[in-house]
């Protein structure tokens, strides 16, 4: 019985003009585009300079700032108002204002002030950008002090030398971190949405009636709906492994078998969840929106883009019920740190519990009466 049902499901998927192409193209699209786009790194901020001094020193400083690699000098403004309007028009992100008599004050009064104004609509960019800029200026200041003081030999300047070193990912490659997690997102979207639309699709098309009068048992029926997505999930994740390896040279530090095992359980749980929603919905529109509602929350709260640790406590508590979080942890740990099953028992238990819970729910909830 199951065999014929499966044959039907696969035929339906294969004959759909969109689905097979989607299943093959989507992983490429996500893995080729996402890792390059999903990047918080601040590489080049547009700098606007107001140089009221026009001295050798101010010129030197501007050169030092613009050659640092973090800032690109795009606007030279005559006054602050002009500078501000260039920020409003998105031509500049950060303003460096050098006051008049900057060089004279520095050599005569031995101290000069500078103004940095950063566009902080994006707080992180604004904050870090102004830190970078003031860091460069402090370096410049220290160089200047050395040049003037050292020959005289009249003071030791206390300098704290800060050495930073990055563990596990010394080149700070964000993509290494993103790619394994993106595979999870990919699986979630494909193996979450498609099952959610499946049963309700039969309801809407009216074929559910026919299904209900066959001798197919509830368990077999749900199984026949579950298995195709399980297999699709495996195809998707295998394509993802290939893309990650070919494009990003990324292979798991741990065993590929571990990843497949976890993926198998995860897809099962997720498809079960999709089927539950499908069972409860009357129209595809409804199913889709309910699924969308949950998937958005699950993805945002999974630690994909923002670390779970920086969430408030109540939010962290909610994430304990987020299967995405566990699978994402597994993928990142296996890919980056090479963890094995023994270190991932917590995640294994959690994911198995989800799979069991949702699939029993789907079976129990499916009624052959309308």
């Amino acid at each position, binding site marked *: 019985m199951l065999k014929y049902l499966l044959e039907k499901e696969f035929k339906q998927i294969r004959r*759909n*003009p*969109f*689905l097979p192409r989607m299943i093959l193209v989507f992983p490429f699209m996500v893995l080729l585009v996402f890792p390059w*786009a999903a*990047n*918080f*790194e601040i590489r*080049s901020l547009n700098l606007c300079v107001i140089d009221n001094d026009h001295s050798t020193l101010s010129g030197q400083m501007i050169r030092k700032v613009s050659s640092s690699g973090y800032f690109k000098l795009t606007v030279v403004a005559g006054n602050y108002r002009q500078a501000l309007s260039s920020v409003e028009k998105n031509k500049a992100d950060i303003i460096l204002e050098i006051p008049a008599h900057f060089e004279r004050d520095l050599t005569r009064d*031995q*101290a*000069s*002030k500078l*103004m*940095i*104004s950063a566009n*902080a*609509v994006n*707080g*992180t*960019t*604004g*904050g*870090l950008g102004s*830190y970078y800029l003031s860091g460069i200026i*402090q370096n410049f200041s220290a160089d*200047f*002090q050395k040049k003037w*003081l050292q020959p005289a030999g009249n003071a030791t*300047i*206390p*300098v*704290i*030398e*800060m*050495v*930073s*070193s*990055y*563990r*596990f*990912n010394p080149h*700070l490659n964000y993509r290494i*971190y993103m790619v394994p997690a993106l595979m999870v997102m990919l699986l979630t979207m494909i193996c979450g949405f498609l099952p959610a639309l499946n049963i309700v699709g039969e309801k809407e098309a009216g074929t559910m009636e026919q299904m209900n009068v066959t001798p197919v048992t509830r368990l077999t029926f749900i199984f026949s709906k579950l298995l195709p997505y399980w297999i699709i999930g495996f195809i998707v994740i295998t394509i993802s492994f290939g893309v990650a390896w070919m494009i990003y040279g990324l292979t798991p530090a741990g065993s590929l078998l571990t990843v497949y095992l976890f993926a198998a359980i995860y897809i099962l749980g997720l498809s079960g969840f999709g089927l539950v929603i499908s069972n409860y919905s*009357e*129209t*595809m*529109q*409804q199913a*889709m*929106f*309910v699924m969308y*509602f949950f998937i*958005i*929350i699950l993805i*945002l709260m999974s630690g994909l883009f923002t670390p779970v*640790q*920086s969430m408030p406590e109540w939010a962290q508590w*909610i994430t304990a019920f987020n299967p995405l979080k566990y699978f994402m942890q597994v993928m990142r740990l296996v890919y*980056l740190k090479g963890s094995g099953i023994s270190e991932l028992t917590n995640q294994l238990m959690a994911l198995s519990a989800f799979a069991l819970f949702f699939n029993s729910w789907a079976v129990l909830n499916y009624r052959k009466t309308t």
Partner: protein
Amino acid sequence: MKQFTTFVKKEFYHIFRDKRTMMILLGIPVIQIILFGFAITTEVKNSRIAVYDPSKDEATRTIIERLDNSRYFDVAVYMDHPSETDNIFKDGSISMAVIFSEGFMENLMHTGHAQVLLLTDATEANTATAITNYATAIIGDYQQELLLLQKIPFRIIPEIKLLYNPQMKGAYNFVPGVLGMILMLICALMTSIAIVREKETGTMEVLLVSPMKPIFIILAKAVPYFLISCINLTTVLVLSVFVLDVPVAGSLWWLILVSLLFIFVSLSLGLLISTVTNTQLAAMLVAGMMFILPVVLLSGMMFPVENMPDVLQWLSNIVPAKWYIIMMKSLMIKGAGISSVLREVIILTIMAVFIIALSLKNFKNRLE
């Protein structure tokens, strides 16, 4: 006209009778604002750090205290030996180790040199960079103060001012983004599905034989979603002003006008999708994959577009939400006038005309 209102009424019945979808349509903005406002932050807050301080002198104590008191760090572990760092990162709860060199203060004052090692767990590169930068800034500040105490001459003192958002709240950045995403979702996705649904269930035939012109049938479908979008716009604005304390710095009228323009673009996109697809599944996939994902990714909602590779920056230009979000940031947060976003208004208008023309052309073909 009476016919038209009857059709609009019919569409409203569709929506009101599907309570679950309606609840979600109206609830999505609330949930997203709350999530983004309170749960999802890219800000680094209270990162747990480990410290190795062999000399325990005034300088190291002050630095540790300042790190601990800042909102970025919590000193969680005091190590007895620098080799403990190997184990300390294993479970992932410690994000940085600060290791002072021996005789820190003494070296600093007499030889002018002392070393601090900032060791960061860089599995997540962004957080790692941010953490290192904040720590560097805090230690750098301390060094500046030392210089001040010692009256070392020739100092350049930078004064930092953060424009528009001095407290560096994440909300200022994402409110325009959430608006762009929700409006796109409701207008493009919902409209396209509502139209394709009629095709799929066969009721489109019935509608087309009514005396109404086909274009008005489609327009009637857009009206309820237009209204829901307006309700959502209000919800998001009210929530962001009263719950998240994000003020509307510029003119509210221009802001609303610009949003209406964007809603119009999204509705016409929905219409376009409905003319090229025949099943709800396909409409959903096209809308979801071709419109919603790019909005999240390429619109600058979460990730700054400036840092992307050139190809993606170029590609982002055809995402309408990108222009909308730029406008909203200028009008709502920066308080700029409409003249500073004139370019974006023109671009969106051209997009609207183009999309409408394209979908009307397709629409006629479909009726034959």
